[in-house]
């Protein structure tokens, strides 16, 4: 987007569209211009959807001019992680051997955003096969490593790399990402933007690449918590094409309880980078204005092991076709070429054991949310890693909080918002994790935090 529009939130852009200050076509053109220049430089783009974008933008323009207003997303450009099927447009799953894959239908998420009048301008880069093959360093995509808008020698995070950097660089006001285990909140954290991982089943997965049927979630990355809420409002809802979707309708209506109780997770915090710790401590002082804070601990359960077994088995099954055809050998990251095989050898009884433990985890975490409205922790212990380092070498054996594994295992929503800066000028972030179905509370928390801080208003010098 040109500097006139880059970094503006959805409400500002919607107001400008209705006041005549701009048009959907002008917004789409400026988003595509910025994606072609800045976005390409950050390896954030797989495919520009110019023809479709202009058709959707022209339609939005005509409808708005005729008084047919579909809501705040009407005429707003966005990008979609390249694991969402789009009719007639390549959907690569970030994987070189699938660079020519084309579906003849749109994913439900794309259909719903189109119904809301949003304009798809690009398919955005991602870690190949959503990171499920075990990548160990940033160069694991057919488009190259995702580059961070705050520091071009740093990674943008994964697996929704392009969604994070395109929003972070002001190319699009929002993007759709997916999370199996960390793939929305991590790039949101690294790129200094908001990212919402919805409750499992809140958003239909139909038409999205399956990595792990019982862990995959789709959700928005955007400038603010409020923008995430607006986008989720369009995405959410049951879908007969995805039987795991939640039947209860969801409406974006952010609200905080009168007596807000926040549980502070400190496990692993001592191993976080000093700036991450400092940002978190400062955030807690801000959050103390909103409610009571109390140190909390997660019940002692093997969250990471259970999540890992479920993920490895389901990924091996979901990618069986690629394994059978020996297509993984053409993936970008050498370590990804070994993906899937080990998972295919996990005994069924041990997969079921992980699913049995998952039930315990869900129950135990539900009890935690009897005591707290939400849990709060740093989103990541480290800022984005340098492009040329293996994650293991950068992390240096740090053992972080189990909340990422626990939250994903139990299908819980999480919202990440920026809360400062760390080494090499890279963003730090704070996450709120809530009970299943608590997105409105998390979004209200994020909005209240962002009303009191200006981290989300900072712009990278790109």
């Amino acid at each position, binding site marked *: 987007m040109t500097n006139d529009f880059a970094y503006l939130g959805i409400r500002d852009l919607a107001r400008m569209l209705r006041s005549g200050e701009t048009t959907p076509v002008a917004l789409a053109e400026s988003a595509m211009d910025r994606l072609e220049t800045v976005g390409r430089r950050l390896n954030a783009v797989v495919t520009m959807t110019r023809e479709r974008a202009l058709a959707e933008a022209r339609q939005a323009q005509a409808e708005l001019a005729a008084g047919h207003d579909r809501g705040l997303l009407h005429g707003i450009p966005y990008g979609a992680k390249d694991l969402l099927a789009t009719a007639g447009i390549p959907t690569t799953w970030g994987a070189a051997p699938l660079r020519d894959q084309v579906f003849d239908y749109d994913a439900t998420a794309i259909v719903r955003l189109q119904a809301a009048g949003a304009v798809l301008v690009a398919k955005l880069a991602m870690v190949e096969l959503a990171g499920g093959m*075990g990548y160990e360093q940033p160069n694991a995509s057919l488009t190259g490593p995702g580059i961070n808008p705050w520091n071009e020698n740093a990674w943008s995070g994964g697996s929704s790399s392009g969604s994070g950097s395109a929003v972070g660089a002001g190319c699009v006001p929002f993007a759709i990402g997916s999370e199996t285990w960390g793939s929305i909140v991590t790039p949101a954290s690294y790129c200094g933007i908001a990212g919402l991982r919805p409750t499992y089943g809140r958003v239909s997965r139909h038409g999205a690449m399956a990595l792990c049927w*019982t862990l995959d979630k789709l959700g928005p990355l955007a400038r603010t918590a409020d923008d995430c809420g607006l986008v989720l409002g369009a995405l959410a809802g049951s879908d*007969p094409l995805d*039987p795991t979707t939640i039947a209860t309708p969801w409406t974006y209506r952010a609200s905080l309880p009168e007596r807000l109780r926040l549980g502070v997770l400190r496990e692993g915090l001592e191993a976080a980078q000093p700036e991450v710790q400092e940002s978190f401590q400062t955030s807690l002082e801000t959050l103390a204005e909103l409610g009571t804070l109390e140190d909390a601990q997660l019940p*002692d*359960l*093997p969250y990471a*092991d*259970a999540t*890992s*077994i479920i993920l*490895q088995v389901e990924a091996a099954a979901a990618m069986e076709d690629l*394994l059978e055809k*020996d297509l993984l*050998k053409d993936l970008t990251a*050498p*370590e990804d*070429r*070994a993906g899937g*095989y*080990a*998972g*295919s*050898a*996990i*005994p069924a009884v*041990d997969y*079921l*054991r*992980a*699913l*049995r*433990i*998952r*039930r*315990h985890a*869900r129950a135990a975490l539900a009890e935690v949310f009897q005591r707290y409205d939400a849990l709060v922790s740093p989103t990541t212990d480290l800022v984005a890693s340098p492009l040329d380092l293996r994650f293991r070498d950068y992390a240096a054996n740090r053992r972080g909080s189990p909340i990422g594994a626990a939250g994903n295992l139990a299908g819980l929503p999480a919202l990440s918002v920026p809360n400062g800066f760390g080494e090499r000028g890279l963003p730090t972030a704070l996450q709120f994790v809530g009970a299943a179905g608590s997105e409105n509370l998390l979004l209200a928390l994020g909005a209240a935090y962002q009303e009191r801080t200006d981290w989300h208003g900072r712009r990278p010098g790109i």
Partner: protein
Amino acid sequence: MAGEQNGAPDGLAQSMRAIVEARYPGRLGDETGARVEKRIANLAEAIWRLRSYRLSNADEPDQTFRAEDRA
């Protein structure tokens, strides 16, 4: 975690390797094979740790099969 123990028996990883070899013949002989072996070893450890978590006959998997037609 109650009952936690470390160190999966070698036989578990060896059995898993045999399954991979049988299912995908000829894929374990090179650099990729070495990576697969390492992952198998890591997963075997994870499996072993999960096996130390106590479950009863009443503990069902967290997935629900329904026989009714929901279409």
